């Protein structure tokens, strides 16, 4: 089971590596969206500090959606997905592996590049760390929930837009807790930890239910 998981993760990473442009696209999208706000709003330190958490998280939500549509689509078109449905292992293993690869390609780079946001918005070290931590905790949930949406909209015409409409509302808890954690870190003695716990709980919950839901949706999509 573990072996299949590893094979699929490394397969997806290798595939992405051979189509490098796509990974960079997510990253650049994130950076560009983040950079637009100070340009539009001005460089007042107080305002930037206020909006930084929200902007960073909204940009992360949108960026992580960019590649979602492709999560299962390529495998669906060339018939690999059919083979994945017929593996002697539970389909959830396949789904988890694909989600894991998606996170490594979209979530993790965002976490790593987020200090750049902190720099642009003149955040202190503490807020920078809390931004990285909240993204680290929350982005896996984004990939997982996104996978459910990608599975549900597989093979539909105009699936991309439907996918956004379906998934963005489900991202709201991550946005609230994630941005909340960063905001709380600005204020001394604020209950920052509570936000991390809620965000973590949200991620754990999505990991527990997501693979099952996405598998069911995939089986339906391939009928």
């Amino acid at each position, binding site marked *: 089971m573990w*072996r299949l998981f590893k094979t699929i993760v490394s*397969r997806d990473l290798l*595939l992405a590596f051979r189509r490098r442009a796509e990974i960079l696209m997510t990253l650049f999208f994130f950076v560009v969206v983040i950079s637009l706000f100070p340009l539009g709003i001005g460089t007042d330190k107080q305002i930037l500090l206020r909006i930084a958490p929200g902007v960073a998280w909204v940009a992360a939500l949108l960026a992580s959606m960019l590649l979602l549509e492709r999560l299962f689509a390529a495998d669906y078109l*060339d*018939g690999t997905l059919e083979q994945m449905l*017929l*593996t*002697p292992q539970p389909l959830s293993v396949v789904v988890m592996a694909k989600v894991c690869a998606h996170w490594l390609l979209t979530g993790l780079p965002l976490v790593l590049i987020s200090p750049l946001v902190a720099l642009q918005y003149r955040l202190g070290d503490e807020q920078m760390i809390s931004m990285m931590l909240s993204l680290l905790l929350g982005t896996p949930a984004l990939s997982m929930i996104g996978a459910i949406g990608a599975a549900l909209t597989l093979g539909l015409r105009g699936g991309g837009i439907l996918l956004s409409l379906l998934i963005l509302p489900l991202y709201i808890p991550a946005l609230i807790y994630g941005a909340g954690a960063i905001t709380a870190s600005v204020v001394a003695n604020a209950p920052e930890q509570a936000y991390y716990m809620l965000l973590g709980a949200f991620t754990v919950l999505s990991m527990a239910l997501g693979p099952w839901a996405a598998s069911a949706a995939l089986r339906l999509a*391939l009928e």
Partner: protein
Amino acid sequence: MADMTDAVLQAEGLTCIRGDRCLFSGLSVSVRSGELLYLQGANGVGKTTLLRALCGLFHPDEGQISWNGRPIKAIGEEFFSRLLYIGHQSAIKLEFTPLENLRISCALDGLYPEDGVLWHVLERAGLRGFEDLPARMLSQGQKKRVGLARLFVNDALLWVLDEPFNGLDAGAVEMLQEVISRHVAKRGMVILTTHQEVPLASDGLRCLRLGE
């Protein structure tokens, strides 16, 4: 293989409706070890649908499919471990080399052969010298061969092949015929469709014509 002995895939009273059209109704068919079921019929009569139903990829509107007397829906993965399905689409990634493609499709079948074995298999499939080239550079027929190379590695009891002879040259057709008859002779079972007339010399050959 220990349990290459006697197994039976049985479908009873299958009915399949796509849109407003009834593809087939009340269809019953069974395949046992050492048998080859040859599905024939014009385009659009539901050959692929029937194959997908027999694999458990598609749930027919009515009827039951069972493996050794147990419904395949209930045993799921246990049935999949006995099954090798090669569909219309090649399941080949153009970015990967034949070697990588074969390794991944084997992993999905639950097999992890060593690289030496994979090289040997690709050579048998007539892809010598192409093992390390991105599949994008291969011809249609060669891509098809990459997909079919799985047949040399996988000794699942039940092979379900959708149009395996499409786009193959004479040599490959012959190779495939040989692999299939060898599998049947080993008391495996094969279900395949084709609209070409390919002579399949085999004792357990049975034909089913759909759409008549």
